[in-house]
């Protein structure tokens, strides 16, 4: 079976990362932003795995587990914050939450 070349993995990961970035920038829904961030993280995971296979080393795969753990923790904390904001402000629109200034 002919192996999929490394380039393709990288292009796919780049596309996924770009989609995630655009999602973060354009979306106003906090939950969608959170999901977009997950997408970016997974794009990075993909490159890790691809390089790991290409180089024949396991270091990248170990790092992926680390990223997944952190991502899980981040999602939990992020959702908790969003939940609390929704309870107090009745909204998950990120532009309503603009008190983070001077």
């Amino acid at each position: 079976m002919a192996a999929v070349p490394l380039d393709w993995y990288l292009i796919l990961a780049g596309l996924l990362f770009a989609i995630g970035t655009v999602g973060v920038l354009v979306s106003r829904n906090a939950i969608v932003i959170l999901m977009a961030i997950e997408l970016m993280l997974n794009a990075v995971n993909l490159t890790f795995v691809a390089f790991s296979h290409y180089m024949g080393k396991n270091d990248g795969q170990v790092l992926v587990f680390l990223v997944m753990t952190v991502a899980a923790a981040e999602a939990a904390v992020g959702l908790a914050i969003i939940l609390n904001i929704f309870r107090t402000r009745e909204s998950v629109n990120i532009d309503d939450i603009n008190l983070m200034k001077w």
Partner: protein
Amino acid sequence: MDLVGLIPLLPILGFAAIGLGGRWLPKKAVSILGPGVVGASFLMTLAVFFQLFSLPPSERRVVTSLFSWVVAGNFSVDISFLVDPLSMVMALVVTGVGFLIHVYSVGYMGEDPGYRRYFAYLNLFTFSMLCLVLSSNFLLMYLGWEGVGLCSYLLIGFWYEKKSAADAGKKAFIVNRVGDFGFALGVMLIFTTFGTLDFGGVFSQAPALSTEGGQRIATAITLLLFLGAVGKSAQIPLYTWLPDAMEGPTPVSALIHAATMVTAGVYMVARCHALYLLAPFSMAVVAVIGALTAIMAASIGLVQNDIKRVLAYSTISQLGYMFLACGVGAFTAGIFHLVTHAFFKALLFLGAGSVIHALSGEQDLRKMGGLRKYMPATYTTFLIATLAISGVPLLSGFFSKDQILSAAFFSPQGGNFLWLLGIVTASMTAFYMFRLFFLTFTGGCRASEEVQHHIHESPHSMTVPLMILGFLAVVGGYIGMPHALGGVNAIAGYLAPVFADLPHLPEPSLGMEYLLMATSVVVAFLGISLAYFFYVRSPQAAERLRQNFLYTLLLNKYYVDEIYQALIVSPIVAGSRWVWERFDLGIIDGAVNGSARLVEKLALRGRQLQTGYVRQYAMAVVMGVVIILAYLVWG
């Protein structure tokens, strides 16, 4: 001799105990502890004194070094005490008279709410004064010198809620600062010249300065040191603080401003006589300043109406006598007068305190009178002291004053003029002291009915010290009875090891000496009779004198305070105000406030960047990444 360290240690322990723990100590304990530590210190001094006495005269100079205090390069100073006849005389006076005054204070200050604070300060003063007189180097002496100045300030302003007292304290401190500045410069010059501050080292090297250039340095050193003495001992031109210092409690005036601290200058000059002898010009300055101060202060004292102020001017005048003695080379006579003066002047002040106490705080002589029958103990002791200071024969003041006058006359550095100033002062002294005495104790009482009702003799804690001092004021003079009267002049023999390097004065002829003695007795009785005439026989004659121009001039103290105010104080205040308003408020505050305002302006702009919109922040991050990537790829 090892006990010498305990002499100053006990009072500082008393200060620590009363000063730190006074709130929790019962008043009774303070009454015992305060005088007790000074009394114990007096016993230590006596013990050391007798140890010293058991040595042969030529070995009576013992330095006890406790520990090394400051070491920096080739500069090193120990905490070390010098025990020699001179320092022992001073220590005995300080602890002995000091102890009596502490005891007196128990009665005098008994009702005062600041009782504990008072004794703490008084013990601290005793410690500083003992450091001053027992030190064996200039630095420790300077410590004591500044310490007594501080305590003087604290005790003059003891009743600080009274504005006049607080002002008087400040005045004393600031005027003394002028003198201390000179003293500090003198000490520094000594160090640069001799490379040490130790008395032994300095005075043994002093003869090396007898070259012409060296003499100039010696003159500079001695004049600077004398400036310190002028401030501390209230001589022209820095005497104005002492009359104002009478705002303090009366025992303080007796201890600090009559018996001990103000004589520190005389002690210092006597201690440094090895340097002064090398500088004839400085000696002349000391003698002339002393004589002029003596006569000027005495003339002011003639007309003052406040009982304590008369005594204050009298103190200045007597200190002038002591400097006159030192200036003509008769250091022994100066120290002798210092001792007798400590006895009778402390007694006069304590007697005045007793009078003020009886009259519910009245200090004006015009509202006193006729106290003889109410206060027999105070009356008798006060009379003794008055006779002693006036120079009536057979009392202490006669012997010491006579030695000074005779030295002023016979010494090569003296002369008829200095003697004349001294003898006129002596007659003025007799006059103003008996004026004070007659106005206070004889005639009818001029106090108001209510005050008269309260007049009472003081408690025993006050009258017993008066009697002891009265005894000393009578017999104190016999330690220095001149050869001409068949005495042995014990104090001169006792102090001889200290002043061994003094050139021998020509032996005056007996006839001349008797003549001088007779003159001073005659002028003393002249002063007394004048006072009797004006204030007992015909008071209306005294009234007529009041119209005189001279009287007004004297009453206003030659307007010296006003002149100082106009020439020195006002310009300095105006200058300081100008600097404050222009420089401090304008430039310093302007620079500080201006830089703060600049940062504020910049920050107002800068904070616009933070909009609070998360997506904008995210956008900024992405843009940053893109730019960095672009730089890495194409840059």
